[in-house]
């Protein structure tokens, strides 16, 4: 798996390949590339410096056995050290008391309100909880409406009392939760600067009154070097229990994750990875390390797929594919499932070597997928099972029905045939996605 590195880094590492041992000279290029990669990922300068020195020291002490490849050993070291920095273990939510109170804080525009909705949705879906959202952003115009809209679309209750004093709102919300048996209370607060003493005092007041189980800092993954001031500012005032990293569905590397953990020891608990309200996942240090090193995220894809397709379904599909009985009907089902996985670009980007294959910037026109769907849907169920009966007149009818051209129908049929051939070839247990 170690060949899945970012381009420049893998080039630099080639120098070590075939060497009998690791010396300061042969890792110099690699160390420089790692330093650049981390700085370009917005990892804090101090952290980068420490990290690079640390890796260098350890690398020089590596015992390269006869059968081992030093380049692989080196990359494993880099990755392990990164994971170490990121916290090596998954940090779940604390639940000390009933109801559990979660308070979200952060700068303006970091995504608190959306994250509050996602968190509520996550708790209900994955842990069968009954969360209550509490609107405490009394400053930004329409912030309360925004949370109410989100609550409405999720069918999750939102407690609001307009622009009342926030501690009073929280007090009433706790009463309300008691009456309505809500087991989780998620408090959405207004965005504020960590240096705004008045507004920070307001957060402290909520904290002293409600004693939340978790005070979570919502932080934008695109943040640069200033992140450390923000994290320290909030942490000093509120003793954060965790962080939620948002907007990871952008093409930012999110090096801020490294700085957070290393400089403050505050664990990252969740990441926001899509604009949809189910776009919240647990934070896995290993995946983050791979993202920063450009190594792809196969685990992430597997998990997304599992959410949509059950194991038995997948096995049935496999059998069909291998026996050559896979038909256009199955193809249509798969297409719809893929659509549910979210934007294809996101998935492609999670593939190892995505950058190398140029997939990180691939643009897929969702319309094209819609065209394919339209063409298949214009066939009769019998035609979908036996595409070989499709001759000129049938094709013309399908083209007309789907609003596409006969050429497009032909192209689709050809591609489908080729795909079937590929599937048969993959019989020998070497499972790969045909897409």
């Amino acid at each position: 798996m170690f060949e899945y590195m970012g381009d420049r880094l893998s080039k630099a590492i080639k120098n070590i390949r075939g060497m009998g041992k690791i010396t300061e000279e042969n890792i110099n290029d690699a160390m420089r590339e790692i330093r650049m990669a981390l700085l370009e990922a917005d990892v804090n300068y101090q952290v980068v410096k420490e990290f690079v020195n640390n890796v260098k020291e350890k690398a020089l002490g590596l015992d390269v056995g006869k059968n081992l490849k030093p380049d692989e050993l080196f990359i494993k070291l880099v990755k392990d050290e990164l994971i170490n920095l990121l916290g090596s273990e998954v940090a779940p939510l604390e639940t000390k008391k009933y109801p559990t109170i979660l308070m979200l804080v952060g700068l303006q525009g970091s995504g608190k309100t959306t994250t509050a909705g996602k968190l509520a949705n996550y708790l209900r879906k994955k842990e069968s909880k009954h969360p209550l959202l509490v609107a405490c952003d009394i400053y930004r115009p329409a912030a309360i409406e925004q949370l109410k809209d989100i609550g409405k679309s999720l069918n999750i209750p939102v407690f609001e009392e307009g622009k009342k004093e926030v501690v009073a709102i929280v007090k009433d919300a706790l009463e309300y939760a008691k009456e309505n048996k809500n087991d989780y209370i998620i408090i959405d607060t207004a965005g504020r600067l960590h240096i705004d003493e008045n507004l920070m005092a307001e957060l402290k007041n909520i904290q002293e009154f409600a004693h939340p189980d978790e005070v979570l800092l919502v932080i934008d993954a695109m943040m640069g070097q200033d992140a450390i001031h923000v994290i320290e500012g909030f942490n000093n005032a509120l003793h954060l229990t965790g962080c939620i990293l948002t907007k990871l569905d952008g093409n930012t590397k999110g090096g801020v994750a490294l700085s957070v953990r290393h400089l403050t020891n505050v664990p990252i608990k969740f990441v926001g990875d899509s604009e949809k309200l189910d776009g919240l996942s647990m934070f896995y240090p290993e995946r983050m390390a791979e993202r920063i090193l450009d190594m792809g995220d196969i685990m992430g894809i597997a998990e997304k797929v599992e959410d949509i397709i059950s194991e038995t379904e997948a096995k049935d599909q496999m059998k069909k594919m291998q026996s050559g009985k896979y038909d256009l009907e199955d193809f249509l089902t798969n297409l719809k499932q893929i659509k549910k996985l979210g934007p294809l670009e996101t998935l492609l980007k999670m593939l190892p070597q995505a950058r190398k294959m140029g997939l990180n910037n691939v643009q897929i026109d969702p319309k094209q997928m819609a065209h394919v769907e339209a063409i298949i849907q214009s066939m009769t169920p019998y035609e979908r099972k036996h595409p070989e009966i499709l001759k000129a007149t049938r094709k013309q009818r399908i083209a007309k029905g789907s609003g596409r051209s006969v050429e497009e129908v032909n192209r689709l049929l050809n591609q489908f045939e080729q795909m079937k051939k590929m599937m048969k070839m993959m019989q020998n247990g070497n499972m790969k996605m045909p897409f």
Partner: protein
Amino acid sequence: MGLFDKLKKIISKKEETTAKETLETYDKGLEKTRDEFVSKLNLLGIKYTKVNEEYFEELENLLIMADIGVNTVFKFMDAIRARVKSESITDTAELQEIIVDELFILYVNNESLSDKINFASSGPTVILMVGVNGVGKTTTIAKLAYKYKQEGKKVMMIAADTFRAGAVAQLEEWATRTESLFYGSENTDPSGVIYDGLEIAKKENVDLVFIDTAGRLQNKVNLMKELEKMNRVIGKIIPDAPHETLLVIDATTGQNGIVQAESFKEITKITGIVLTKLDGTAKGGIVLAIKENVGIPVKFIGLGEKMTDLKVFDIESYIYGLFKDMI
């Protein structure tokens, strides 16, 4: 030493009231930013009286911490090293002046930069606001609307962020507060909203139309295509429009800022940047890298939450704000 002398002149000639006012706001807004940066630069000067490798390394650290951009910093460091060598500089105090000077050169890059808004010769001037999520597009429109209302313009806001919950209501409230005209409706096609809105703007003889768009991460193809479509619709109703397309960037943004600028520029003709949230501790140095790599200048900066806290960007004041205590 162009800039440095100018800065010194500005400081000594404080009777120029307009200049002074601008400087004071910059001064206040960038206070936190500057405190950090300058005290570090000064410390550096105390720690190292002679220019040596360690000094360079710490200077590099300082610039990277200001988010100026890794490649830009490395290039900048090369330029500094070259000048140190060719001018035989050994004194760090002298070098500090050169650092400010080179930063200025880096930004200006021999171009004549216009920070003015390009107004339509007749009919409504259309300003399209774009950017990733949460950078402050809606709030910036409010501040701009306030500014131009004060100057006696007839202002209108169009809410084309039909995606985010509460976005239309948020802009509408700002329209009420700034007494601007407003058009928008939720859950519809943003291009449709723009079409209807601009028709009204023409009928009402509005001077200035601000179009608020949904936050979009630059790698989302669909949303970027939507932006393309909006642009076409705007041009159809008002030829030559949008007259300005402003990319809003959060001052806390790191290296991704460059990618943001590049991607948005590919889709739509970005005419300037609005750098928001400079009242925190973030230095917003990424705009220097953006100017160098993508060639888009900053037009406005946000220095606080008040309506009057949006200022026309002035590179000299900006650098002055960063370095005042040092001079």
